[in-house]
């Protein structure tokens, strides 16, 4: 970690724009948590654009510091590696999000349209623009290649029905960060009955995503 090295001019003494100031170590830990959650969750998670901005600032800061260091210094290569790692995690996080947006584009847009004003948004403004362009692009393409040559009553396709929804019943591995009580597990088959579990702190489980979706959003569990 950048903080592991004692040189203060190589690590970013970053003040985030949020009200809570974070050390770089905390920032990167949060990025990694968001990355893992996004990777293993079947649906698009909440948007974390402040986190992305802070990490980008941190990266530019570290690159600038690296330029100032004397060439050939051993510490420089360690920091270079660090920058590469953080950049990989950030890229992978953003790629996961983009892939999910592309896969579920009508549902993602519908969700964004129908959310209440106070609710947190799932898409950053740029992601929203990207999703809209993707929808428009695909619709124009389908219309020009096939739909406009079809009989009049068949010239449109309902994207919400045509594109499959994310499968919220897929199983995910999770680690519990805060103890949870009385989680209701719904039955999967007709023979089972619903039951209630308590999740202890630090324990790991394999459960259906639908059961613990709100806990992932609140940070009480971490997907692994």
């Amino acid at each position: 970690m950048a903080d592991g090295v004692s040189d203060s001019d190589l690590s970013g003494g970053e003040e985030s724009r949020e009200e809570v100031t974070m050390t770089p170590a905390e920032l990167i830990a949060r990025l990694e948590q968001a990355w893992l959650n996004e990777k293993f969750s079947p649906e698009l998670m909440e948007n974390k654009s402040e986190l992305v901005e802070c990490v980008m600032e941190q990266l530019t800061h570290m690159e600038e510091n690296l330029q100032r260091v004397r060439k050939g210094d051993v510490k420089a290569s360690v920091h270079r590696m660090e920058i590469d790692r953080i950049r990989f995690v950030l890229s992978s996080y953003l790629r996961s999000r983009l892939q999910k947006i592309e896969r579920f584009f009508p549902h993602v847009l519908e969700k964004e349209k129908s959310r209440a004003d106070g609710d947190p948004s799932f898409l950053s403004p740029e992601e929203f623009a990207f999703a809209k362009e993707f929808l428009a692009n695909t619709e124009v393409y389908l219309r020009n290649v096939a739909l406009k040559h079809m009989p009049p009553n068949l010239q449109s396709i309902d994207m919400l029905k045509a594109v499959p929804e994310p499968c919220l019943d897929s199983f995910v591995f999770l680690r519990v960060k805060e103890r949870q009580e009385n989680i209701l597990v719904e039955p999967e088959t007709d023979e089972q009955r619903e039951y209630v579990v308590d999740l202890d702190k630090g324990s790991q489980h394999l459960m259906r995503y639908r059961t613990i979706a709100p806990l992932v959003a609140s940070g009480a569990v971490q997907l692994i």
Partner: protein
Amino acid sequence: MSLLTLRRNFFNVHVITTTKIYRENCLRWYIGDLASYDFIPKKYRHLSATNKFTMFCEKAVELIRELHRMGDGQLPAFNEDGIRQVLEEMKALYEQNQTDVNEAKTEGKSELIPSIKFRHSCLLRNQRCIAAYLYDRLLRIRALRWEYGSVLPTTIRFHMCAEEMEWFNQYKKSLATYMRSIGGEEGLDITQDMKPPKSLYIEVRCLKDHGEFEIDDGTVILLKKNSQHFLPRWKCEQLIRQGVLEHVIS
């Protein structure tokens, strides 16, 4: 001499046959082989099992099968002919339905309704198959942007129709705009860094002449075919994916 018997054939017409043939044909009728009947009137001959039945929507399903056969995300040539045939079938079905709907309305022939419904579901199936074919191709084309970068190899471009090329260009533009906007300043190229970094510098061999290549500290390397270099990994990623450099693992 076998006994003569009278029976009704499939079309409920009395015919004279021998008992032996009658028994055989009963068995065949049970199995479902129409063609073995002793006599099929000319006007029903097209229903004989020796003729190939063509169902509706077969061409549409063939399009899907063609894509299914090419695994691994390969993009086959755009089957313009196939799409055209399916669209023609749809036009024919729709026109037949129009006539029948008019007839049913004006002359009250409600017995036409089942065939109208049948043709309508064929139309829906054709529409769905075409949409699936086109959309699956789009997904493969999208993957090409992430694999090959902004410029596609000419062999792949030949397999795309003009509208697919247009979709690809729009997609590239959207992606570039999005990447530029990340983090609020210069943005981030997320098509790089596809693998976690293992080491800082890697040994690469040059597969083709690529000319001069500048690395961060200002030194210029000449990438000549078969030359080997020890270069920073992040600089080489794109060139490795394009096939210009090859990672040498000794």
